[in-house]
């Protein structure tokens, strides 16, 4: 692997080799940040109109998010912006601290209220979209495609490779990512407190609250970083059913429980031959 580049984007450290795709991340962040007043997402969420014309990039990302929701039976949901705000995630995570006040009310999914036709978005005013569930992975996939040579792009728990790369895993161990992406979703980072309750950013759309899961971290190998990320989030939210859900789709998955115990599904065990 050639020289490493490091920079911050989309609320996390980006590490890459084989090129410097900082501009790719800047473009995605400028459009989809919940915390930038000039982002398109902020403008769309603040619009009082029922129908909003969005940019081609926004339409593409939202279409991907709606498809991800369909593939995961609504588990990966782009309409949970209000739930994140209610849990207290209302500013850049670097600025987020504990708060003695209680969290706001639960904000369940409003997926059925969103319609996208081409570049026309229809939804009730006040519905807060949050596309972070797919946008970072899309940025990683685009960035790795833009590399000038073999290498990788890693942003937070999202990673994609061009050529084989050996990757260290949460809780120890390593795996060689030969093709595609590797994503880890979990609650080890991005935690904070509201009142007595610990909060995190993985919202269960069925309750509108931070999810309760037996897993601390779920790592999935996908044909793309997007596929891996969507599957990892869904498997985390499915709790004990996560390993079987991945196995039914032939997706290699590795689960780290809160006590540090590591579980792998058959696809992971066969391919990686390690935990």
């Amino acid at each position, binding site marked *: 692997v050639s020289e490493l580049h490091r920079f911050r984007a989309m609320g996390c450290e980006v590490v890459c080799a084989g090129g410097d795709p900082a501009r790719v991340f800047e473009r995605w962040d400028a459009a989809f940040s919940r915390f930038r007043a000039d982002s398109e997402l902020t403008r769309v969420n603040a619009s009082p109109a029922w129908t909003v014309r969005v940019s081609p990039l926004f339409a593409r990302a939202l279409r991907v998010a709606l498809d991800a929701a369909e593939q995961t039976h609504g588990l990966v949901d782009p309409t949970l912006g209000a739930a994140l705000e209610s849990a207290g995630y209302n500013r850049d995570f670097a600025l987020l601290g504990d708060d003695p006040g209680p969290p706001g009310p639960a904000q369940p999914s409003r997926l059925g209220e969103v319609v996208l036709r081409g570049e026309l978005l229809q939804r009730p005013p006040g519905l807060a979209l949050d596309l972070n569930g797919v946008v970072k992975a899309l940025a990683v996939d685009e960035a790795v495609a833009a590399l000038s040579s073999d290498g990788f792009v890693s942003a937070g728990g999202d990673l994609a490779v061009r050529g084989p790369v050996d990757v*260290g895993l949460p809780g120890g161990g390593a795996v*060689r990512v030969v093709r595609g992406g*590797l994503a880890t979703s979990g609650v080890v980072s991005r935690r904070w407190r509201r009142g007595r309750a610990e909060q995190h950013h993985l919202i269960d759309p069925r309750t509108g609250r931070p999810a309760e899961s037996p897993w601390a971290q779920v790592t999935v190998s996908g044909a793309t970083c997007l596929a891996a990320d969507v599957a990892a989030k869904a498997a985390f939210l499915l709790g004990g059913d996560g390993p079987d859900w991945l196995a039914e789709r032939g997706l290699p998955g590795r689960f780290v429980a809160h006590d540090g115990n590591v579980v792998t599904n058959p696809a992971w065990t066969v391919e990686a031959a390690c935990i």
Partner: protein
Amino acid sequence: VASPSRIESARARARGAKVAVGALATLVFGAAFVGAQHHARGHAKHRAKPLAAPASFEQAVRQSALAAGEIAPPEQPPSVVTSTS
């Protein structure tokens, strides 16, 4: 020399004939136009729609979007450590 009344009646017949020929030509053209719309090969029979993949194809593509990547046992010390998102 023909009387003025015969000339007038001849002109009236000529005008009538011209109108009849014009109406017949319009009718024939209209019938041919409609016939072409319905029968001529290559002529649009209905309003054009944008090209799109069949719904079944799109569904198959969406389902396969959650496809597996390729992993293997590591061969070297890790170049990068994946964190958590």
